[in-house]
């Protein structure tokens, strides 16, 4: 009883209105499969799985973009790496999911390390373009790999296997896997941004010169952050590969990197839960609008422009404002 009291007191002290809204939303996500099977709409689970995978990707991008000020226009590369780490082993009939995950972590980490070492030496426009350039290089590498389908991509016949632990051929199990990974990623990012390391990253975004004068090798801190972000996104890629069962270099197209940024901005840059809300809204609008008209991209584009011009803070800004008005 005492523990419970102190816990609720702790919660009440620390949590703002918006955070509670987000947490309720996240708890609801945990019940989603049961709800969807109750109303007999299995397609919704598909949609929601996609939203959660993209949330993980957007969350990882927000770590470097929102908190670290590193505007990468090449983050879709890691989704591709993760997906191919499922597809290529599967091509050789290696279905062990732990192998897939390990490969994804290693390769996305290495790609982030290598590309980060070069791109983090630059700033501003140069950084944006170099991150894009690295992803283009990867894109063309996979296009030229005829063995693995080249331009046409690969079909993944079977999902990753986690023998005697999990069977993610079952859509609900896969959903919970993604859900738990998302929760884990939230926890990791939350801890990171509040840790001493995170402070250095946030400080570097706002005043790199000062951070160096304080004794921080900002380049190295940013590089570590860049690698962490890449690895998280690589894991999201493993789920994306399992989930779509078809992968192609097109996944790494720069427009998809742009979409990830789009999601962050809809949700609210610098907001922990922004990427989740953003990805949800993005997919929701995509499904909804594409059902109405083939010209839905126009509305999307317009939405993006209006959002930047008038809607600073995205959905998170809106929710926060609502709570402020109540008080």
């Amino acid at each position: 009883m005492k523990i419970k009291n102190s816990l609720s007191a702790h919660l009440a002290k620390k949590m703002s209105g918006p955070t509670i809204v987000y947490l309720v939303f996240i708890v609801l996500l945990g019940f989603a499969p049961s709800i969807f099977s109750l109303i007999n709409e299995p397609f919704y689970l598909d949609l929601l799985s996609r939203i959660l995978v993209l949330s993980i990707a957007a969350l990882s991008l927000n770590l470097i973009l929102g908190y670290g000020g590193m505007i990468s226009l090449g983050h879709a590369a890691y989704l591709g790496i993760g997906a191919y780490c499922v597809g290529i082993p599967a091509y050789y009939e290696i279905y062990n999911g732990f192998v897939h995950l390990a490969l994804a972590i290693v390769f996305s980490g290495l790609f982030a390390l290598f590309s980060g070492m070069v791109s983090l030496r630059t700033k501003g426009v140069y950084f944006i373009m170099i991150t894009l350039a690295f992803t283009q290089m990867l894109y063309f590498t996979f296009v030229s790999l005829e063995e693995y389908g080249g331009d046409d991509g690969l079909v993944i016949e079977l999902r990753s296997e986690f023998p005697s632990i999990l069977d993610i051929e079952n859509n609900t199990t896969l959903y919970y896997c993604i859900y738990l990974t998302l929760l884990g990623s939230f926890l990791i990012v939350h801890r990171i941004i509040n840790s001493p390391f995170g402070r250095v990253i946030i400080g570097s975004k706002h005043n790199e010169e000062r951070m160096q004068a304080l004794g921080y090798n900002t380049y190295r801190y940013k590089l570590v952050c860049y690698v962490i972000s890449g690895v998280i996104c690589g894991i999201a890629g493993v789920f994306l590969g399992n989930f779509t069962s078809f992968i192609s270099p097109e996944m790494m197209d720069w427009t998809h990197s742009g979409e990830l940024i789009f999601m962050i901005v809809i949700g609210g840059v610098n907001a922990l839960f922004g990427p989740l809300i953003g990805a949800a809204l993005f997919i929701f609008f995509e499904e909804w609008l594409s059902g109405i008209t083939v010209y839905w991209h126009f509305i999307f584009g317009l939405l993006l422009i209006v959002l930047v011009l008038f809607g600073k803070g995205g959905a998170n800004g809106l929710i926060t404002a609502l709570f402020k008005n109540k008080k």
Partner: protein
Amino acid sequence: MNWELLIIQCLNGLQLGLLLFLLAAGLTLIFGIMDFINLSHGAFYMIGAYFCASLVGLTGSLILAVILSLVGVLIIGALVEAILARRLYQNDHLDHVLVTFGLILCFDTVVHFFWGTQGMTIPLPPTLDGQITIGSIVIPTYRFVIITGGLLVAGGLYLLVNKTHLGMLIRAGASNRVMVTALGVNIDRLYMIVFAIGAAMAGFAGMLIAPLTEASVGMGNEIIIIAFVVVIVGGIGSIKGAFFGALLIGLIDTLGRSYLDGFLKLSMPPNYAETAAPALSAMMVYILMAAILAFRPRGLFPPTHKS
């Protein structure tokens, strides 16, 4: 060594380079003067191609169609500047990326709406559709048209930037923005002119390429990335850099695609070379960019005095 093939490939490279220059020149000025990242610059390339294709059908005259389309793209460029871009110069780069990404979506859909998903080609008059034979080399006449057109525009831009009052302001703006503002120049108008001229050049590139590849939705999205590479390699804000950067990238890309295969076979087994060559040649321009930035972080020809 097959010299005829080499010459033809060099002409191909020159052609690609000049097209890239037409795109990159506007980009680099918009970058350099307004500090604005315009991902949607490729849309002008697409619009130019579609305008021209439709107008050739309507007017029956290629020249008239080109002139009218140029005016059309010029106006659209000026409108985009006045309505949208102008509000964003003070914002950070992320906002530029987002808004112009949104613009791409809008432009692509508008073109899709009016012209459909089917590509459109520009029919060439017989005089331009032939071939020219020099010695044993046979080259399509139209290739010369593209090269001549590109060189003429480059020359015109050179004169404009170096010999006119407007050009003086453009140069000053690219190297020192604060100074131009301090000179009491009507900065809004200068920005609009630069943006519109840049758009028109991109549109012209689209018109030049359309007879070869046809106009299609999203045609600018691929090439604009290479044009960005040109801008970075050449040095942001530098027309000279854009010119030499574009030729360099054009040649390297074209020659890489045709010769890398053979070159790699000198040092590795043929089956490996055949796998590696296409990937490597597609990546070469990006590798070049990374290498150049490693040694010259501000590109090959950065404008002097950047404040």
